[in-house]
């Protein structure tokens, strides 16, 4: 069977898994209701099936993705597009929307990342959630998320993408608030939902602009349309407006300034969720969107530069905030925001494939870090405060080894995945020249910060004296089902850089594999942005840039590790000597607090005023008054019919005569 005919199975499998898991949850609830006294062992049999079912669904989707990828690679580069037949969803006269599945080089990479990392995280989650009474519900949500994410990357038009976009948002909301009994989780879910709504509104308005410009939401048609419009030289403003609004949508989903505040709070969800949704996949969908629409963004260089400013500011603010966090997952959350900033920095320089490269390696090492952190938290019974850890490498050696591999990749130590991907972004930003030189400098600073906070984590968690009662807590290594995915991800985090080695790499033909793979997708954007003159650096410059990156990573990794491997002294010193700076960094420059004070609270006040003054006094009064008036009229109308037969006949006769007179007088009113 031709590949295109079963493409829709890729999202359908996890969707099916989600439905099955939901049924299993319903059965479990029914069993608990039937036998309230029985132990969880007896009643939760069905729920235990959810893990294998959900993992199998994602695993099969991964197999299909691999098959789709290999089918794609058999085609000549310019013909690498597999598109399923279109289901005509909305047919509204001059405009119609279809739903179809599209696999091209870009979406095939996304498929592999989502299904591959997703499957590993599913396997891991089986151990992590083993004791949770709601595990079937958890896997139902998680599988639904994977289905929606696949819909997002597979859709050939923006409307289908938006369905996935909203779907992953919903699943994110559900999973952040998964432990809704716990204080603060449901507020965190709501915050994520509401903040994302701002971005989604921008996304929608941007889509409307595109419909206005091109009369379609099909993304390849939009790309071609942009090229045509540019030749005619009109509509530059509308193109920029649409690009800006879509970037606003990406800011919401990918946690960029000013909308990044939801992501640190989203860590309230279970750790596998943080790994899958809030590090590896969903938050990168903004990056995916920009790459997918690269001709549109390339046609709006002003928006691209603005994107660079936002990205650099986000990367710096979040990176500096990560330095001052005590919560292990908090560091990782701010680190994620910061790394997403890197990706957008690359996009702003037109380095589409470099951004995707960083997306992929980041998915490996950040998922690894989150999962390893989850393993740590699992091992120390739910504690997340790094100040109450220390010396854990003795108790959980395998977790420690994989975590260190992830941290090394994140900090960009030479030859690891993060080194190559981060460096490529910085190199291309440098090569873009002009205003991007400033952004490059900020990027270098953030690289130093990244190395520092990565090794600070390692030092605080795994080295130094134990800052908890070892007798009482007895930290333990996690089961194999959790450690195995860690090892696979650690392997990928170490060697992932081979996907896209720099141009100066000595071996012939091994450089830029991913870049060449994505070339058919990014060709149009490159043409529009660079007019065929892509910035080029001499080999010597490239070597120097690589050396600067490697040197910074090594120096600051050493500094971070050295400062924290013996204990907390450095943090205490910092807090005592510079309490103001420490507080500012910890609260991410007070942005969230400022939102609460200047936006959320005034809106709440306004809402209260509206509910009292407008709703109660104005609208309710009008509505109730109208209802009372209608009833009063009704009483009159009712009395009309109460008369005697003679009276009724008189009315009728009079009416007939009146009708006749009116008509004879000239026909009408």
């Amino acid at each position, binding site marked *: 069977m031709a590949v295109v005919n079963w493409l829709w199975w890729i999202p359908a499998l996890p969707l099916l898994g989600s439905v099955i898991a939901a049924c299993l949850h319903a059965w479990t609830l029914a069993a608990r209701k039937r036998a309230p006294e029985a132990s969880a062992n007896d009643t939760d049999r069905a729920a235990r099936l959810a893990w294998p079912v959900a993992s199998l669904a994602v695993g099969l989707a991964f197999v299909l993705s691999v098959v789709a990828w290999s089918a794609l690679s058999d085609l000549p580069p310019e013909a690498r597009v597999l598109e399923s037949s279109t289901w005509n969803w909305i047919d509204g006269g001059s405009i119609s929307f279809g739903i179809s599945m599209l696999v091209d080089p870009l979406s095939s990479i996304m498929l592999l990342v989502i299904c591959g990392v997703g499957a590993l995280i599913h396997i891991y989650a089986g151990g992590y959630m083993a004791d949770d009474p709601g595990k079937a519900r958890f896997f139902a949500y998680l599988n639904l998320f994977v289905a929606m994410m696949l819909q997002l990357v597979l859709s050939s038009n923006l409307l289908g993408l938006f369905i996935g976009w909203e779907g992953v948002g919903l699943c994110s909301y559900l999973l952040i608030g998964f432990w809704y009994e716990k204080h603060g989780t449901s507020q965190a879910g709501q915050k994520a939902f509401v903040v994302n709504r701002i971005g989604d509104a921008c996304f929608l308005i941007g889509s409307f602009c595109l419909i206005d410009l091109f009369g379609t939401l099909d993304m390849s048609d939009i790309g071609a349309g942009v090229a045509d419009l540019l030749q005619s030289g009109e509509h530059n403003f509308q193109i920029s407006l649409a690009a800006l609004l879509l970037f606003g949508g990406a800011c919401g989903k990918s946690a960029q300034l000013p909308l990044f505040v939801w992501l640190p709070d989203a860590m309230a969800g279970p750790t596998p969720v943080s790994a899958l949704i809030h590090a590896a996949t969903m938050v990168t969908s903004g990056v995916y969107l920009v790459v997918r629409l690269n001709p549109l963004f390339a046609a709006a260089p002003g928006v691209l530069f603005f994107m660079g400013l936002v990205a650099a500011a986000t990367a710096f603010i979040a990176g500096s905030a990560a330095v001052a966090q005590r919560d292990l997952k908090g560091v990782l959350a701010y680190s994620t925001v910061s790394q997403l900033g890197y990706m957008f920095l690359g996009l702003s320089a037109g380095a589409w494939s470099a951004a995707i490269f960083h997306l992929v390696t980041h998915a490996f090492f950040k998922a690894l870090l989150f999962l390893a952190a989850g393993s740590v938290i699992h091992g120390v019974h739910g504690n997340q405060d790094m100040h109450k850890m220390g010396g854990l490498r003795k108790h959980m050696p395998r977790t420690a080894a994989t975590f260190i591999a992830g941290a090394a990749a994140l900090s960009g130590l030479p030859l690891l995945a993060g080194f190559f991907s981060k460096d490529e972004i910085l190199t291309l930003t440098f090569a873009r020249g002009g205003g991007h030189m400033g952004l490059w400098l900020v990027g270098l600073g953030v690289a130093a910060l990244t190395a520092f906070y990565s090794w600070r984590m390692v030092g605080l968690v795994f080295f130094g004296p134990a800052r908890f009662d070892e007798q009482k807590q007895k930290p333990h290594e996690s089961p194999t089902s959790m450690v195995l995915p860690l090892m696979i991800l650690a392997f990928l985090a170490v060697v992932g850089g081979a996907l896209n080695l720099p141009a100066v790499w000595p071996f012939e033909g091994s450089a830029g594999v991913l870049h060449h793979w994505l070339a058919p997708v990014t060709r149009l954007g490159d043409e529009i942005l660079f007019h065929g003159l892509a910035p080029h650096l001499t080999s010597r410059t490239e070597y120097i840039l690589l050396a600067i990156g490697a040197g910074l990573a090594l120096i600051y990794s050493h500094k971070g590790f050295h400062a924290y491997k013996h204990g907390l002294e450095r943090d205490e010193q910092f807090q005592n000597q510079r309490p103001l700076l420490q507080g500012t960094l910890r609260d991410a420059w007070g942005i969230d607090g400022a939102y609460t004070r200047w936006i959320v609270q005034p809106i709440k006040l306004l809402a209260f005023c509206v509910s009292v003054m407008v709703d109660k006094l104005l609208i309710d009064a009008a509505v109730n008054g109208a*209802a009372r008036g209608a009833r009063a009229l009704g009483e009159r109308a009712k009395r009309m019919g109460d008369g005697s037969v003679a009276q009724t006949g008189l009315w009728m006769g009079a009416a007939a005569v009146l009708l006749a007179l009116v008509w004879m007088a000239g026909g009408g009113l």
Partner: protein
Amino acid sequence: MIALLDITALDAADLRGAAPMLAVTCGILLALAAEIVPALRPARGLAFLGSLVAAIFLEVQLIAAPAGEIFSGAFGATASASLFGLLCATSAIIAWAYSLRYYKLEAPYKGEHDALILCATLGMLIMCGALDLLTFFVGLELLSVPLYALAAFRRARRDSVEAGLRYFLLGAFAAGLFLFGAALLYASSGTLSLAGLRAASLDAPLALMGGALVISSLFFKVSVFPFHLWVPDVYQGSPTPVTTFMATGTKAAGFAFLFQVAFLMPAGAAALTGALAVATMAVGNLAALVQTDLKRLFAFSAVAHAGTLLLGVAALAAGDPVASGPLDAALYYMGAYIFTAGGAFGLVALMESEDERFLKLDALRGLGRRRPGLAAALSLFMLSLGGFPLTGGFLGKYFIFASALRADLLLFSVLGILLSVVALGYYLRVVMTLWMLPAEEGAPLLESKLLSGRLVTWLCTVMVLALGLAPGWFLERFF
């Protein structure tokens, strides 16, 4: 003058066009024969149902292949006339299904009751296809006289007798208006056939007066403001199955002819008709708001629905650019209304037959918990009457208002839509009473095991949903 019928000149088309009426006539004869020959009694129901089902079957045939003008132009077996006829026959079946075991004291005379219903149905069929004022009048009287008797059928009850008498006196008055109007039209134009009247100039005051009187009498039959004053008392006093029949069948037949004679209105009368439509909706809906008796509430609701249909007539008079738009809209509306109102009144009959009192709104309290099926069906009918989407009532309303808007009756459409919001005030009150208010202590269970009633309730439910969910199926086949 009408050409006298020569019985030998009847041809196959005449017979085919008249076949539904002949089927009903056979039913009447069988029903009466069963009164005389006791051996035929058990087959009474079969004869009734058989004749009406045969009539419906024949009407469906006629819709597919209309026989055209028959009986020398006195009767038109057109597709729309057949569709109206089909609706009237269906309405008779619905009313009859709810009437089984409804009567206690009058049970021995049930045969007469059924024969009278069949007579009225025959009258309706004639009214639906009449192309001649005199033919129509025959149909009208054939409908009205049995209905007078039916309204007073519970002769031991004062309210029933009063309803019959009131209906008879006012009906006779309306018939007088009709005849006088027809006479004036004849005096002015020398013809009674609609084709002749259409060809003649009707600008003379005499003709205008005649038209006004004819239309006034039709307004009386379909209960348009201010000719609706008889409705609440008659609907409430009549036995409920008869009310069901009056509210649905009579309205269908009346509007069928009203659409035929809309040309009698002078140019520019559309605004007045629209105003009357809105006034009818207003009076019906506002008065229904304050009713506590269920039957009276539905009676005023029936008045309001007549107003909506009249808006379709106004759209025709104002010249809807889609020529068949208003009539098709009214047909769809009527189709949904037959099943919705038929089901609603019928359920009242089902619940009422248990104890002899009038059914108050409060008697429905807590029914959602105790009899969820019945409550769900009644709720669906309320939602459809209120025009909720996914029900037949919504689409009917939509078609009517769409036609009115096409005909530039913007003001009346807006007012009409606003008044349908008012209507929700009482339709949703019924739904709320069913589901959200607890039952009173010691309230009767309102249980009814009547099989035919249940079957017809199911039929109505399915049809209301089908008309709302799959309009294409009906529009393809019947329009």
